[in-house]
Each structure stands twice: as structure tokens, then as C-alpha cells.
């Protein structure tokens, strides 16, 4: 085991992640009309964003400023307020809105 990975040498091979690959490609050096991985990506939607209740999936008319969750009616609001904090964060993480501490 130890002969296989001598000290000071990293185990296995490190593979570049997609972000690194794309950065290394230097797409800015190529003509912009040539299709590449970056520029075929879809732009942000022009439709108004759909606001749905984070818990039930109904159309959300309201927004709770304390938990930052969207909710559909009073019943859901009660549930929202009774949710423990980690659940709130998990619901927020579903739509990429959770507070990330770095």
C-alpha cells in the first residue's frame, strides 16, 4: 500500500473539472461565431419567473421575510413558521437561495 503511493506523491491523478477545462480552452481567442461549449449555452429566460410555494408547489402569492420562503396560503405559512431552521435552509437550497457560509 505504502510502496504504491510513496510519500510526497499525490494519490491517483487529478482531473481538471469542467470549469478548469473551459478556462484552459481560451474561447475568447476564437471567432465568436464559431460554436463552442460556452456560447451554445441557453441565455436566461425571458418569461416572468414562476414563483411557486416552496413547500406545496402551489402558486405562491406571498413571501415570508423572516425565513425567505415563498408560501401559498395561511396554512402553509403556519408550517413555514414552525419549520426548524435547517429545514428552511434545505428548502431554500432547492432553488439555490440558501445562505452559504464560507
Amino acid at each position: 500500500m505504502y510502496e504504491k503511493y510513496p510519500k510526497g506523491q499525490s494519490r491517483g491523478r487529478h482531473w481538471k473539472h469542467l470549469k478548469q477545462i473551459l478556462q484552459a480552452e481560451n474561447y475568447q481567442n476564437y471567432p465568436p461565431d464559431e460554436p463552442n461549449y460556452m456560447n451554445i449555452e441557453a441565455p436566461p429566460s425571458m418569461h416572468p419567473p414562476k414563483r411557486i410555494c416552496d413547500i406545496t408547489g402551489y402558486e405562491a402569492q406571498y413571501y415570508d421575510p423572516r425565513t425567505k420562503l415563498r408560501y401559498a396560503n395561511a396554512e402553509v405559512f403556519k408550517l413555514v413558521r414552525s419549520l426548524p431552521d435547517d429545514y428552511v435552509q434545505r428548502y431554500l437550497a432547492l432553488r439555490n437561495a440558501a445562505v452559504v457560509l464560507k
Partner: protein
Amino acid sequence: MPFISQIERQTDYRSFPSSVPIVIDNGGSYFRIGWAGESDPRVIFRNIVQRPRHKSTGETVSVVGDHDTTLLKYFDCTRSGPRSAFDNNVVYQFEIMEYVDHPVLITECPCNPVSSRCRMAELLFESYGVPSVAFGVDAAFSYTYNQRLGVCDKEGLAVCSGFNTSHVIPFVEGEPVFEACCRSNVGGYHVTDYMKQLLSLKYPQHMAKLTWEKVEDLKMEHGYIAQDYASEVKLFQNETKEAEEKTRCWQLPFTPPPVEEQPSEEEIARKAAIKERQGQRLREMAEAKRASRINELENELRGLDFLLRQLENVNEDDVPAFLLSTGYLSKQEIESSVAKVNQSLRKTKREQVELEEKAEAATAEKFPLVDIPDNMLTPDQLKEKKKQIFLKTTAEGRQRARQKRAEEELQREKQNQLEEEKRLENPEMYLEKLRTKYKELSEKVEQKKLLKTNGNNTNGNSTSGGVGRGERMNAAKKERMRLLTTAAFDRGKDSRQVKDIDPTFTPKPDSGLCQPADVPRARPLTKEDFQIIMGVERFRCPEILFSPNIVGIDQSGLDEMVGISMRRFSPKGQGLEEKLTSSILLTGGSSQFPGLSERLEAGVRMIRPCGTPIRVIRANDPIFDAWRGGSSYAASLHFPEQTFTKMDYEEKGEDWLRRYKFRYTL
């Protein structure tokens, strides 16, 4: 219909000449490989790799695809979970993928980064010794295959929704136009993940049951695309019958707890009898014990009586000698022990022992030495006097306490009476007063809690002060304890009082403590607690294909992507655009949701000018068409023209590979 892996050792490798190409559909979720010209791939497996360690030998092994779980028990899988070679839809870990003497046709994503393509070529050439390689896009193969089947036209759009990404690629003359293609990073993975997260948030108690594979099955089986999300969700919100029909329920294995709540009459009677018998036995035992104790005490008493009588008969002079033989010091001692025995006898006979009263009455006699001046006493008597004084003071203290208690009792009674009077006088007002008092108190408690949390926060922020960790903890602990006690005290006192008078009163529940979704522990678990109900989730999760912003991906949905692709399409001939929209082919694993084609058609109709012919067609087989297209392509005579060899690769270099372009029409 869930995907099925088919892994079987192929034995006919030698029977194929080395000119027959191997076709690989290297997909994000599944890996499909087979011989060119055949209709179905030979081997299909999940495109994941796991590197578990053998439990006894400690060797690491690479396990490709999902294997028998019985096999995996020999390996320790805790250190490394299954990994995919894909980051988004680009292969980045090549180690995962490893002498093959056949040309290879392998699929890649549209506009694959050159370095990724290079690595794949390198791998195929160097580790496998493949003679020649061709790269093609899976969606294009699927489109050409369906075109050959007559499903779609030469001009058209391929909407390919895969595992990690979705693409829209326009086709002109059967060739893909990558200049106008469009990709969004939403695919089957996101749908499954969203569903998994939602369900495990909804049913935290069944989190362990909601494995990735199971949720994927649920998605494939029950997921559908709503024609109009808003109206569909309204159905569920208004709890209509239609919605009820659309709700699916997954019953988890549930075994009812052993029936104990309804024992039969006889059972109850039998149990009661047993209990009764046991009680009887205990009582008898206690009785016997008591009897023996009484007997013993009586004997002792008799002995002492006898001793006293004997003492009377003895001469004055012989008394000390006699006492010495008995072990007692004086007649008084014998008498006191007689009294003691009598007392315990009475106690055991359960007679009311009015000991205290007697003791009080006897106080005066009991302490005869207290009032006699010291100088008249012998040293022994002095000692005795001290003892008596002590006893007397304690007895007096006890009496005083008793008196005080009685007084308090009286006071309380009075107060209660007063309250009662007030209540009877004006019950409404009284009630109101109590309520406000309760509210005030509960607010105070709430505030204290808030203060406490805030205080903790500030504590956490300003830890750099001179206060040591231990002390801080102590202070916090103390504060917590204090709050808890006050809260408990206030609550207990109040609710008890109010409940007597106001039956409608319910104490405010402590917010933030109860978990609504949790199974209430108070009642026994029923079948319903082991059900996973999917209503809105059935179409809420696939909806992200059309509105990725639901999961926080700021990109357009499938219908808009078609519009974008049309916009990017440069040779604007009116006829051509109409041709494109009249042959939209749906392919890829995520295009299997029911309702997708109708929804896409409606979406495209909104984007395109009025009267545009629109036809959305589902691919013949969304999953295998890409491989089949590749297979038939590789089987054609012109295929060798499209491949490149290791020599080409080494001579021409990366830049050439970047411009390498595959022709799909031959």
C-alpha cells in the same frame, strides 16, 4: 419503465473481424456499447464507477456500473461512493474509462471542449490501441436514425433532453447546425434530485427509503408534464376529485405492531385474576411478616414484664446485681424499652399512633431538669440538662413551624375565597384579567427567550474578550437554567389556574420546537404513516425542464430554447424556418414524460408567428436511438472516411482535432 442494466459476458468477440467498428454511446446516465450493424447494444450499464476496498485484503478494486449488492458486501463502500466521469455532460475523469483492435465510434456532447476530446482520443489510442476513432453527437445520431425511419424530415429540430443537459439542435439537409444549437444545464438528473429532495423534506422519517434509484423509478413511473402548471396546481389546491385521482401513493413495507390494544374479555379477566392472585400473595406475605413481628414484639414485651415483676420481688440490695445480669442499667431503662416496644407493637398493629400529641403533652415532664439551676445538679445531670435543653428548643421550633404552616393555609384559603368572590361577582372581567396576565407573562417569557438567543449571538461575535471559554459556558448555562425555571414556573402556575375557570383555554404552544412533519409519537403508527404520497410532485419536478428557475438555474426552458435556436439560425429563408418547426424530434431519456410533446408544441406555438406549422414527434425509442443511429452509421461503407487514426492525431495535433467535424450524411 425504469432502465435496466444488462451486463453479460460476451463470448463472440473473436467471431468479429477487426474491421467491424465498435459503437459506444457514452451517455451521462447509461453506457451503451455494441457492434456496428446490430440493432441493439450488447452491454448497457450505469455510467458510474466505484472504488471500494476489499474488506479483508485492503486492495482497491474498480467496480464499473451498478452491481449486485450481494457482491458489494465484501467491499467497504463507505470511503468512496459511486462517481460519474461526467461534470455536466463533459467527460473529465478519464481514469475511470481503460486492447481493442476495432475502429471505435464514440459519442460526445455537442461542442465538446478540445481537451476533453483529446484525452478521449489519447485514451482510446494509447491504452486500448484502437486503430481509428470517430466522434459523433448522440442527438444527431438519434435524429438521422429517426429520419431514416421516416419519423422526421431532413430539416428539423432535435430536442434532446439527457441526464445532465438538454440540447436543441437544428438540422438542415440532415446535417446538424451547431452554430444555432442551444444547451441548458437541466436534465433528468435535476428532476430526480429535485424529487428526492422534496420527498425527503416532506417525509423526513422515510429518508433512508428514498434512495436515488428508487426516486428515479418513481420519476419514470409517475412523472408527467402538466399542460399548464398553474391550472393543474389549482386542481390540487382546491382538492378536486380529479386531483385525487391523480395522486399516487407509495406504500412502504409496514407491519402493524403486535395487537395488544384489543385483548379479549377472557384475556382481561385472566390477567386481572393473575394480578389479583399476585396481589393476594403479596398481601399474605406482608400479613405473615407482620404477624411474626407482632409475635416477636409481644414476646419481648412479655419478657420485659416478667423482668419488671421479678425486679419487684428482688431485695433492695440485690437490685444492682440483678440489673447487671439482665444487661439493663436501671428500672427506668427497662420501663422506657417497654414503652418503645409497646409503641412499635402498636405501629405494626396499625393503630393510630398519636405520638406527636403525646410528645407535646409530655414536653413538660420530659424535660424536668431544664428549670433547675446548674449548681444544684451533678455533672451527669448537667449533661442530661444540656441534652434536654436542645431537645426542647427543637421541639418548640417544630411547633412554631407547624403553626406557621397552618396560618399560611388559612391565608391561602382566604385568598382563594376572595378570588372566587371576584369571579362570581363579574366572571367576564375576571377572565379577561387572567387572560391579559397570561399574555403578559407569556410575552415576557418569549422576550426572555429572544434576548437569550440574541445575547448568545453577540457573545459569539465578541469572544475575543478576556472571558475564558469555561466561564462563558457557565454563564450561558446559568442563564438558560434560569429562563427554563421561570418559564416552567410561570406556565405551570397560570395554566392550572386558568383551566379551572376557562375551559376554552389552551396554553400557547412553544413555537419552533414542534416538528409538524414528524410522526406524532403519542399514537401508535398506522399504515398511513408509511405512505409516500405524490400529488403535485408528479408534475412539479419535471416542470423544471420548462422553467429551470424553479431549481435556481437561470436559463430558459425547452420551449424557449427552440425559439433561441431559431433566432441563432442564420440562413433566414422563410420556408426553411417553417420546415424546421414542422419536424421537431424529441429524444433523450428525459423526453419520455407523458405530456411533454403537447406542452412543447404549445410553447413553440406561443413563440412562433401565427399560422406556423408545428409538429412535435417523439423519437421511436428515445433511449436507444442514438446508439442505433451510430450503429447503422458505423456499419456503412463510408464510415472509415470519417474516422481518424493515431497517426493523424499525432501529426495534425490539437488544433486539427478542434476543427474535426463529422459528417452525418453519407
